[in-house]
């Protein structure tokens, strides 16, 4: 066994894990797929695919409605996932988990429900300079509507939040802070626990965008004391189109509904409608029940391996990739924070990331190229785009060697 194939984490069998992911065994453009675009979406293990199929083969019926057997079974299954999520992020109660389409919808829910009720003219919403567009635009829409101001806490040249500047921007005008747990473009892990404590000291609630954190870190919303925590299934090996908003019960209780429809009401007359209790108040309409079934399988899969072990394996991959890619001629790594998770963003001399992406793709290597829905981050580093390799539990050092070889090939084409 060569040094590059030694896996550093004891008891972590990456080949066994790879065997569980059917897509990893397909060929792309005549090469074995090297999938390094996990920050965009992760691949799905067979258990998740089977759970979705199994739901439609055996359990499908609308939830919270029928008195018949299947409806009861579907409702039970649906609520089991909510409980699994409650445990996964350590929420105090299952009703604090609201099913939504994904992180984006979770943030929009808070902006439109909590935000419209609490943010007024002259108020401020605070975000950071490393946010994904989905944690920028909902607040811009809110601020525009209310005559409020969006403030942005800056980052340094390593891509770390400048905590002192963040502190200065927490003022009596600040009605909410919305911050990424892990930056999708840079991989920076923000000190969210400390940032939340600083906001709370001034009575400011905090929403955490956890889309990039849940696949890589153990998340404990009560330890963080997050008021809202938004995340998606598809980045943690679950299906697309389903996500969750965690919110403290007291906050959610006091918030007006986000969307109106079935399931979210307690009674409807043409004169007055009363809202259903949590979590149903925020779950109008028939949800993605197949997706919810698949998500539970993904949580069970991750728990079966252990988030701590996954994190250790990915940390080893990131360190290895930083070393072997970082020493290639012409490579400049963008995002060199001390605390990082699973993202290696880089640029290469004068070669545009889009050209690099095409050349890597010809070798079966999938990376993301572009601004990663974080244009302000690109502006901060004075670059139009980066190449981003992002890692998951099933990636190997051999795949990082393939990436490095692919980058050398770029150098040959552009020599």
């Amino acid at each position: 066994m060569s040094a590059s194939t030694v896996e550093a984490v004891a008891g972590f069998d990456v080949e066994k894990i790879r065997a569980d992911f059917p897509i990893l065994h397909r060929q792309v453009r005549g090469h074995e797929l090297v999938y390094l675009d996990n920050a965009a979406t992760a691949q799905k293990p067979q258990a998740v695919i089977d759970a979705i199929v199994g739901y439609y083969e055996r359990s499908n019926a609308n939830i919270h409605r029928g008195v018949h057997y299947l409806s009861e079974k579907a409702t039970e299954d649906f609520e089991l996932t909510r409980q699994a999520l409650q445990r996964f992020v350590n929420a105090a109660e299952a009703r604090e988990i609201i099913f939504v389409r994904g992180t984006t919808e979770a943030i929009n829910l808070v902006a439109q429900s909590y935000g419209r009720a609490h943010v007024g003219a002259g108020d401020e919403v605070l975000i950071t300079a490393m946010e994904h567009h989905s944690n920028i635009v909902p607040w811009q829409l809110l601020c525009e509507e209310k005559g409020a101001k969006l403030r942005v806490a800056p980052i340094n040249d390593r891509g770390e939040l400048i905590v002192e500047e963040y502190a200065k921007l927490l003022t009596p005008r600040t009605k909410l802070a919305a911050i990424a747990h892990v930056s999708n473009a840079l991989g920076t892990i923000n000190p969210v626990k400390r940032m939340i404590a600083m906001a709370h000291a001034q009575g400011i609630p905090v929403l955490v965008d956890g889309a990039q954190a849940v696949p890589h870190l153990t998340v404990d919303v009560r330890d963080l004391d997050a008021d809202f925590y938004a995340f998606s299934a598809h980045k943690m090996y679950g299906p697309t189109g389903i996500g969750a908003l965690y919110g403290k019960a007291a906050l959610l209780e006091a918030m007006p509904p986000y969307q109106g429809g079935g399931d979210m009401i307690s009674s409807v007359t043409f004169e007055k409608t009363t809202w259903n209790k949590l979590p149903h108040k925020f779950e109008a309409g028939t949800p993605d029940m197949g997706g919810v079934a698949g998500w539970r399988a993904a949580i069970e899969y991750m728990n079966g391996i252990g988030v701590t072990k996954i994190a250790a394996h990915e940390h080893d991959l990131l360190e290895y990739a930083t070393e072997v890619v970082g020493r290639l001629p012409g490579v400049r790594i963008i995002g060199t924070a001390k605390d990082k998770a699973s993202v290696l963003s880089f640029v290469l001399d004068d070669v545009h990331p889009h050209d690099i992406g095409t050349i890597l793709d010809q070798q079966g290597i999938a990376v993301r190229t572009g601004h990663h829905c974080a244009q302000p981050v690109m502006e901060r580093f004075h670059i139009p785009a980066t190449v981003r390799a992002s890692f998951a539990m099933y990636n190997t050092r051999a795949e990082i060697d393939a990436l490095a070889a692919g980058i050398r090939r770029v150098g040959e084409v552009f020599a």
Partner: protein
Amino acid sequence: MPELRDLYQEVILEHSKAPRNYKEPAHTNHKAEGYNPLCGDRFTVYLEMDGDVVKDIGFQGAGCAISKASASMMTQSVKGKTKAEAQKIFQRFHDLVTGHGHPSEAELGKLAVFSGVSEFPVRVKCATLAWHTLEAALEGKQENVSTE
């Protein structure tokens, strides 16, 4: 399977490294900006129109090798042409890179090196960004052009 060398032909690489007419002509009287938010490519195309004729043309901006080479070779191919001729060349170029129709090499001249783009559909927008921007500049439109 498409080959990288079909896309990254020597002529294209050479133009991307040393683009021609990379300037703002002194007597510019039309200009437009083009932007592809997908990859961040951004170009400004400048025209000095003498009546209906492209008397001088230049461009500036940043983008991938395909978009930059395309912009560079575009400026060479439309300089001295009438507006209608320039639009005709764009139409043929567009057919070439999207794989629609089969414009002859005689009709396309040097631009034929972009034929490989049709095998890489996600790169069509790179190849046509400067051309869409040229079209806007010819029309005298003020708004920015986007290929998204």
